[in-house]
């Protein structure tokens, strides 16, 4: 054990001093590693922020992290597949949830008609008091007001739909849908608010009314289409999801966001793989420089390696020494790269305005403000890849150094 400590000490001394024999080369390599690591972390944080935004927007539009509904509702989202407003027992369960953010909604296909145009829409009945927590609709209003009570007689439509219907705030529209007996029900509503969605496509289809007003219109008093539950973080809803599945009434279907929208789920799952590929691509570019640096460093001291072999250093110790040199180089580069990444990400925590490409971002479902998202797992991944693959990449030059023939090495020029 003591001998191993001494070996470590001598290897560390040699490695550290050899590293600084050629300041310029080491400096260039450190710069390359630092920039590479910065690119890994910074770009990953930007991508993660963008995808997180896309997912958050997508989940907000579902809406909610978990939906509880009639088992046939997803296949046939008609008023016939409604469920009872939660009873006292189930309401008590929902109240006990950690997040306590939940609401009920009515969601039916409908037709909206202005004086000039008629369009098919999703008619959504919401509880005004709870909606802000779930979809953030009040904050999206660009004109008018939000609902004042569950019996409010107005509708809120998207700016794009208003354009299509050639109508505006304060005008009346007629909304038609079917009741559970397939009778057409219709009612005139005044447009009390116009919203601008983060995803403009939604503005054309989602029309909001107060929940109780819609229950009366559709003759479904005491019934809703969905119960929407929002957890603290969409990535960590499993415990909440399990709890709801176990305790929800058996005739209701509980589904998580990733089951409802498989596209979002695929995007979420793909992101981790994408980050890994990105990190590895950058590392591959780095590895050429790293191997070149090591090969040059070894080439320059072939005689010295012959000398330490002659003095009785085992080939394995020579291998360890070169690997240690590479590890030190990588660790310093990682330190610089991480520092650089933090120094550039932290000032952007309030968001990076990318409104010049807002249209393209909107097509991808992301907003025009990009919030870099730095996660511990991404930091760990970038650092682990660099150090593990870096050391692996260094094995070949180190092994070749350890296998040098001492006589040839000593006689080399």
């Amino acid at each position, binding site marked *: 054990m003591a001998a191993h400590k*001494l070996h470590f000490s001598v290897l560390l001394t040699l490695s550290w001093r050899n590293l600084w024999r050629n300041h310029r080369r080491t400096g260039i390599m450190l710069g390359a590693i630092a920039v590479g690591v910065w690119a890994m972390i910074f770009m990953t944080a930007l991508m993660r922020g963008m995808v997180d935004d896309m997912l958050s927007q997508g989940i907000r539009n579902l809406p909610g992290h978990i939906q509880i509904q009639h088992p046939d509702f997803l296949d046939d989202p008609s008023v016939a597949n409604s469920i009872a407003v939660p009873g006292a027992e189930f309401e008590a369960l929902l109240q006990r949830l950690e997040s306590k953010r939940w609401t009920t909604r009515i969601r039916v296909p409908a037709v909206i008609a202005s004086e000039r145009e008629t369009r098919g829409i999703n008619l959504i009945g919401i509880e005004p008091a709870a909606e802000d927590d779930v979809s953030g609709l009040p904050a999206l209003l660009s004109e008018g007001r939000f609902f004042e009570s569950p019996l409010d007689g107005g509708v809120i439509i998207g700016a794009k739909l208003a354009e299509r219907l050639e109508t505006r705030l304060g005008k009346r529209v007629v909304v038609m849908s079917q009741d559970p007996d397939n009778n057409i029900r219709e009612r005139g509503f005044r447009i009390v608010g116009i919203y601008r969605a983060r995803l403009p496509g939604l503005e054309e289809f989602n029309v909001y009314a107060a929940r109780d007003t819609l229950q009366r219109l559709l003759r479904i008093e005491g019934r809703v289409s969905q119960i929407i539950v929002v957890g603290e973080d969409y990535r960590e809803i499993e415990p909440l999801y399990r709890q709801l599945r176990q305790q929800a009434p058996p005739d209701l279907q509980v589904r998580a966001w990733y089951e409802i929208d498989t596209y979002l789920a695929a995007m979420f799952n793909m992101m981790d793989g994408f980050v890994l590929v990105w990190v590895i691509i950058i590392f591959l570019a780095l590895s050429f420089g790293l191997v070149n640096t090591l090969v040059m460093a070894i080439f320059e001291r072939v005689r010295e390696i012959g000398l330490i072999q002659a003095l*009785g*250093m085992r080939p394995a*110790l020579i291998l360890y020494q070169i690997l240690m040199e590479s590890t030190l180089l990588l660790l310093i580069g990682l330190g610089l790269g991480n520092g650089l990444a933090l120094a550039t990400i932290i000032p952007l925590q309030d968001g990076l305005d990318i409104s010049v490409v807002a249209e393209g971002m909107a097509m991808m479902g992301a907003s025009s403000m990009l919030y870099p998202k730095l996660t511990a797992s991404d930091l760990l991944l970038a650092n682990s890849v660099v150090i593990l693959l870096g050391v692996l990449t260094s094995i070949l030059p180190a092994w070749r150094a350890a296998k040098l023939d001492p*006589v040839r090495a000593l006689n080399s020029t």
Partner: protein
Amino acid sequence: MSAIHCHQLCKTFRQGDEIITGLDHVDITIEGGEFVCLSGPSGSGKTTLLNAIGGLDTPDSGEIRMGDLRIDQLERGALADMRLHHIGFVFQAYNLIPVLSARENVEFVMQVQGVAAAERARKARAILAEVGLEGLEDRRPAQLSGGQQQRVAVARAIVSQPDLVLADEPTANLDSVAAAHLMGLFASLNENHGITFVIATHDKRVMAYARRLVKMQDGKIISDEAQ
């Protein structure tokens, strides 16, 4: 030290299409405490014999024994251990590790051997003083003259009391004063510490210190005389 026996050592090298004979059926025995000079012109086989005895090079055929140890049959790791614990080397040039100070160079072998730090430092300072380098312990090789560097190399070669010191043209890069100083040092270490020296040289000033002179030519020993 156990005697070194070389029996029918042969070694050839390929240089382009040409086969060069390094050692041609060499038989030699070196007893403990001897001060042997291998002399002969360039290409006579002195360095090849030295490298074979030191386990730096493997003969094509023949045997090298140090006591019961068959040096020619050891694998690389075991050869390194044998050199570490039994043999000190002094080369013609490029003897020191440039990134280490004189003291660290001397301590290097002891450090690999696993000698504790305090003991290493004590021994290194003492031996550097003995070779006349007191006060220069913390200088890097580039800050020392050629003669001083060779003395550091000698200090490193003998600090852990090896059985055998192999020196290959140790005075080739030294002026006559430094060479005389170095050879005086070798002779004194041989006499006072009983360390066996085998020195490959074609420098007559060095041969004058030898108590046994082995002359080589074309890979063969052509004379072996006590002086």
